């Protein structure tokens, strides 16, 4: 199988043998171990838990460890590149700093009122708020959505789907004490209102989350806060 790997501004071609149940990560690992040890890429768990092996395969961002070659290979083989919308450190490795910096800008840190000496907060699992949190809480920060988002591509300041999804789970977290500050943080020019609802993030999320729904929730929450004069 012909595999084109993006290395800087050029594509390097490799010939990789097909194997049964072969993943794209297997292909990249084969290239690095057998053909060119200078190829840089990133992975850790290999089983879809850590999110560190995300790359662009045939133009589509995905976890390479959970992407079978059978499902994505075209007649002319595979093309593998780094995630889009992020600076490339080398070959298939991107610098994730801006991605996580935006989580902080969207106030992605939990801020509660209780200390370790207090009793546990009782949260009803069936409550509407908790259900909204559950719908978005499983994000593992792989940046596939950020790479797929064409608003990020057009507006590099945009906080992006993952950071806004994180903010939404904290807005709906009844233990949060800083929700007004968080709503202010996501209501700026690069915040939730910049989303065009193209749903590329929701389409590509390997965890099948819907950042689009989270962003829509933030738009409603900021509008309500604004109407009450609390924004």
């Amino acid at each position: 199988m012909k595999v084109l790997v993006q290395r800087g501004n050029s594509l390097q071609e490799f010939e990789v043998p097909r194997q049964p149940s072969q993943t794209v990560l297997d292909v990249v690992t084969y290239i690095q171990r057998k053909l060119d040890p200078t190829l840089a890429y990133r992975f850790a768990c290999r089983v879809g838990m850590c999110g560190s092996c995300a790359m662009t395969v045939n133009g589509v961002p995905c976890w390479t460890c959970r992407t079978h070659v059978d499902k994505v290979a075209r007649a002319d083989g595979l093309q593998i590149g780094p995630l889009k919308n992020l600076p490339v450190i080398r070959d298939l490795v991107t610098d994730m700093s801006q991605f996580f910096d935006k989580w902080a800008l969207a106030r992605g840190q939990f801020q509660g009122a209780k200390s370790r000496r207090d009793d546990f907060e009782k949260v009803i699992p069936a409550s509407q708020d908790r259900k909204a949190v559950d719908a978005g809480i499983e994000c593992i920060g792989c940046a596939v959505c950020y790479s797929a988002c064409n608003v990020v591509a057009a507006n590099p300041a945009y906080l992006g789907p993952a950071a806004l999804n994180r903010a939404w789970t904290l807005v709906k977290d009844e233990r949060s004490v800083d929700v007004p500050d968080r709503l202010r943080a996501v209501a700026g020019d690069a915040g939730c209102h910049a989303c065009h609802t193209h749903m590329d993030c929701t389409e590509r999320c390997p965890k099948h989350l819907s950042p689009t729904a989270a962003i829509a929730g933030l738009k409603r929450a900021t509008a309500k806060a604004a109407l009450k004069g609390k924004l």
Partner: protein
Amino acid sequence: MTQTALWLAQRVTAAILAVCVVVHLATIIYAVQGGLTAAEILGRTRGNAAWLGFYSVFVIAAAIHAPIGLRPVLGEWLKWRGISREVFLVFFAYTLLWLGLGAVIGVFA
């Protein structure tokens, strides 16, 4: 706050425009049955306060809605951000208002 206010203004004007466009199109389709002349239109609109009110709301909603929608288009496609973009959009809004209300008054008076 500004973004949220703009977003709310665009959603509210979108709801108004949805009704206005339907009424506008339905009126056109109804009115052109069997041909249409300028005299016929003016016969309906001249001195008619209801049409004056309807089209004034239509124009005002469009003048608010369109510049807010144009704002990210200019930002994302032309990389035009900052105060000059906002000044241009205010100018654009007033131009729509001036042209639209001018036309509305033209067929009323």
